[in-house]
């Protein structure tokens, strides 16, 4: 049996396989990616200030994107999370964090849905203080326990029982930046 002589020629097998895979890579990944990169519509997000950008770094460091998408499908089931995502939403994102799992809710428009800084600070310090059935990790390492808050401190107003008795919970710079980032996640209005 012969397969065009290929079965006796290891170089030919490799050459054909590599060329085919490379061409398919070009057609299915690199060229469509270049086209998406060249998206010329207006960005539907605004550039971030330094603190918000730092907050996004914290979001990436903690792997928030493994449980929270930032990608709303044009489906009734996704309506609670906002309007359908558009290419313009991701133009300024490096990397865009569409995600593949929703163990927690989508966050593409969380700044609109939950605009309270205090809520987010409590939620990051002790998620179960605001959502009893939540399974989100508590990010206590971004907070400091103090006996008394200083004049410039941002206090997380956690309910009694969440914090050690007699202590106040002060948000560290990373917690403040992360909350600023979450509050910045607002889908811009677009004409349909």
């Amino acid at each position, binding site marked *: *049996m012969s397969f065009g002589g290929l079965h006796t020629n290891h170089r030919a097998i*490799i050459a054909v396989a590599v060329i085919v895979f490379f061409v398919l890579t070009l057609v*299915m990944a690199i060229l469509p*990616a270049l086209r998406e990169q060249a998206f010329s519509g207006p960005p539907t997000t605004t550039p971030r200030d330094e603190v918000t950008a730092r907050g996004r770094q914290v979001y990436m460091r903690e792997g928030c994107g493994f449980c929270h998408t930032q990608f709303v499908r044009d489906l009734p*089931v996704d309506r609670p999370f906002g309007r359908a995502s558009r*290419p313009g939403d*991701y133009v300024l994102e*490096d990397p865009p964090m569409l995600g593949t*799992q*929703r163990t927690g809710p989508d966050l593409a428009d969380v700044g609109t849905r939950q605009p309270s800084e205090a809520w987010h600070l409590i939620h990051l310090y002790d998620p179960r203080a605001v959502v009893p059935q939540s399974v989100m990790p508590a990010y206590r390492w971004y907070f400091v326990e103090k006996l008394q808050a200083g004049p410039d401190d941002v206090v997380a107003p956690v309910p009694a029982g969440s914090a050690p008795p007699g202590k106040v919970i002060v948000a560290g710079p990373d917690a403040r930046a992360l909350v600023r980032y979450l509050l910045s996640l607002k889908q811009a209005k677009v004409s349909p």
Partner: protein
Amino acid sequence: MRDPGLTAAPTVDHATVRVTFEYVAWATVWLLVGTTIGLIASIKLHWPEFLPFAPLSFGRIRPAHTNLVLLGWGSLALVGLALYVVSRTSRVPLWSPRLARIALWLWNLTLLFGLVTLMAGVNRGPQEYREWVWPLAVMLSAAVLIDGYVAYRTVAARTLTEVYVSNWYILGGFCYLPILYVTSYLPFYQGGLGNTVVQGYYMHNAMGMWFTQLSLGVSYYAIPRLLGRPIYSYALGVLGFWTNLLFYPLIGAHHFIFSPVPWWLQSTAILFSVGMMVPVWAGTGNLLLTFKGASGALHRSYALPFIVTGLIGYALSSTQGTIEAFRTANIYLHFTNFTVGHSHLAMYGFITFIAWGAVYGLVPRLTGREPSPLAVGVHFWLALVGVLTYVIAISTAGILQGLAWVAGQSFIVSVIAAEPMWLWRTIGGLLMIGSHVVFAVNVWAMRPYPVTVPVSSPDPVRMPA
């Protein structure tokens, strides 16, 4: 047709034996580390205050788990076995076991740095299986290229005219992975949604163009060798090779159905997800038909049950993947834990079981030492019951999540619905880890003798003369 799987020389050079065993042994270490981390992650979903330390937080250990089991366990075990298969089917000693050993240490170093950096929160964001920083990607690519070169030189030095079908798959895998990996890290086309297009291509092809390639390559040697009969159809094996190459790279975008990535890309992906049924069933059918009339061997061998389970896992997980690609299924199942069940059915039910079967089938032939059949049986049943519990629980969790969302209920309802299933997933995971400990003991029992001795094959199935 003459089948190198059957006519391989009875003795193996000691250097090839040692390096193959070292790959398998290190793979086992990473299996234990990677799945322990996976278990911790699983426990955290029903006990969120378990081990509340930053380096062990869910978002950090999730990529540590996936990368260690994919690149540590699965890849190292299959590379070690593939190097042995390449040498056997070419009927020459492995070209430069020394270089293969250098590559192994490069893998190990990359995995160690990867583990430490991911737990320290140093990553490139939630870009699945390409989370760690680029210097580690360079190291890993170098290791794969070295291994691939060793395999290539061995096949080039073969004493047979034909290139046995195993080596098509193995050399293919070694060629595809570096292209895939480099494409996924180069930044020039990854602005905006360009990144997402590449993500779909990468995360999907990592499975079909690497793990599937090496697993099938090893299976096309191990099955005829263990059964003592030639493969059912050489032509079907070659058909599977080419159709996999033609269809698989087209279907990555099915991870982003209903997303703003181009609609034609999504539709092509769905279409060829159906096309994948050709290589999948050609491959499974071909390998399973090799067993026709030899079911007695299945009872006597402790390696073959793993391989048969793996082949069934291949067919099931691939068919499931095709169904999940449809837009209707996407509405109900995408973003849910059903995806996690699918990936474990594929990586564990298929890849891991094939790797175990090949280790138990081939390693005693090279080292001359066998594990206790009872311990192998315990390993098999713990792993099988464990993964079934895991996959059924987490798939049920996914369906419950999807139903809660479609019913338009508050989001937390989907969390409450899934939580009992998350506990069952942990129970399945515990059984799986138990099986890994038994496997580690068995690997130790199969270790090579310290000095060169002529090895006689302790065949579970007697070879025809």
